């Protein structure tokens, strides 16, 4: 495969950024334009949200458990095992639940969206939809975007809860800590800004997952090989963007809500 010259590569990347920005703009603008496909929104919410519950429950629970497990030994050295609940809840709610839930849903759904829309694109179903007078952005993309944002928000809350519970399970049954003390410290450690941080991130991550998945799907070319390529790229790019956006959002949140 011949190497691209740097200027061609940069132009191609800038063009992709432009296309993606316009794509996102249209997806958001369609929220305020008729017709609205409420049944598609509900269907996607079921597929994306309800379908991801098992994986989010498992991820959250065991992540909380691992946090408690790993922190137990370190905290015990300082006689601070009582702070396990605080440690687990802050870590889960600020960072781990949003990011890990986002990554799990990205793997499951960004790829799913890219492959579904990509298959439709290469078999001319998207063109057929346009020929029948239906806007595929309104019918396919905007419902997925809205559903993913809403459901990821709710799934993160589920992950927060299960993570805290997982930590409690390990703290009580493995580290012989007091359950009441665990939940007390977990609750008291949290302040308003922690909740805002932890629940703002899934909104951004949901937007990233859905728009990247749909964008790669709608731009698929090259038959079944192209669908495979789009699926892989959607998962990889959305995962990387989640990590990058997490860093950016954390920095912004710490600036807005500086530590006391």
């Amino acid at each position, binding site marked *: 495969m011949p190497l691209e010259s740097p200027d061609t590569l940069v132009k191609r990347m800038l063009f992709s950024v432009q296309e993606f920005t316009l794509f996102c703009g249209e997806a958001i603008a369609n929220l305020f334009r008729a*017709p609205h496909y409420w049944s598609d929104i509900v269907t996607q919410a079921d597929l994306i949200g309800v379908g991801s519950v098992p994986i989010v429950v498992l991820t959250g629970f065991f992540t909380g458990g691992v946090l408690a497990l790993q922190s137990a030994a370190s905290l015990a050295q300082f006689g601070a095992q009582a702070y396990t609940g605080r440690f687990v809840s802050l870590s889960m709610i600020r960072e781990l639940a949003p990011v890990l839930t986002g990554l799990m849903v990205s793997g499951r759904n960004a790829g799913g969206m890219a492959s579904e829309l990509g298959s*439709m694109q290469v*078999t*001319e*179903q998207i*063109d*057929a*939809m*346009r*020929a*029948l*007078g*239906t*806007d595929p952005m309104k019918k396919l993309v905007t419902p997925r975007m809205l559903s993913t944002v809403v459901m990821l928000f709710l799934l993160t809350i589920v992950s927060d809860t299960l993570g805290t519970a997982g930590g409690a399970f390990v703290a009580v049954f493995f580290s012989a800590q007091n359950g009441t003390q665990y939940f007390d410290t977990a609750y008291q450690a949290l302040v308003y800004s922690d909740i805002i941080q932890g629940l703002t991130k899934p909104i951004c991550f949901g937007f990233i997952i859905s728009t990247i998945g749909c964008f790669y799907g709608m731009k698929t070319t090259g038959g079944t090989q192209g669908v495979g390529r789009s699926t892989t790229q959607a998962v990889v790019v959305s995962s990387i963007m989640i990590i990058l956006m997490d860093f950016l959002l954390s920095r912004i949140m710490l600036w807005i809500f500086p530590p006391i």
Partner: protein
Amino acid sequence: MTTTPQLEEQEDAQHPAHSVLVFEDVSIRFDGPPVLENVSFKVGPGETRILLGPAGVGKSVILKLANGLLRPDSGRIFLFGQEITKMPEHKLLGLRTLTGMVFQESALFDSLTVRDNVGYQLMERRLPVEEIDNRVREALRFVELEHTYDMLPASLSGGMRRRVAIARAIIDQPQFLLYDSPTGGLDPVTSTTIDELIIKERDVYKTPALLVTHRLQDAFTMATHRFDQEKGEMAPLPHGTTNPDTTFLVLHEGRLMFDGTTKELVTSQDPFIKEFLA
């Protein structure tokens, strides 16, 4: 300068507003050499224009340009008298509901049943369920596939999928039909069935159409046959006669090199056309 009334009538008839579809010097290229170069033609009311050409020459591109699914690099396109070359997509969506398009590989929505595929446009318009059901059954009856109502496209043969695609295209009584290789990849018997449906739509409903094909036998079948409504089947026209509203276009290397009647086509002395028809 004054013009004679006859010339005025001719100019008036050629005005984009009186033709269903007008291409004026349309050119388009993707990566590489131009796919279409200065292509100009019209489809008048009641006309069926058959676009012939070798595989890969750009025939499907013309259909997609005609429906605004692609935009030309230069030139103008008029659909129902309105210029669609730079028309915003949301306005084009409304115009497209007046057309029906049959794609090369049918392009049925594979997660929807035949009923939902055929009734798609009606569902989008939020018509009552009973009306949709009745009209879907009527469209499926036209293509003789009423029994596939609840089936998924994956359960259908290639020919059946093509017929369902035709039912989907005609259900809302379009004012213009676009067929992209409707018999491509089908066996001769099934191809004849599809030809019969197209001729039936042409002769019974008089819907103007642009039909793309590289199969000469199907093209000439359409020019030399009519639909016998009494017998409910295709019948040949008297020997030596052709359907006057069915005319031909030939595309070669991005340029339209023939635009005329069946007789003009078969008697053309152009070397490429002679070789193509041989």
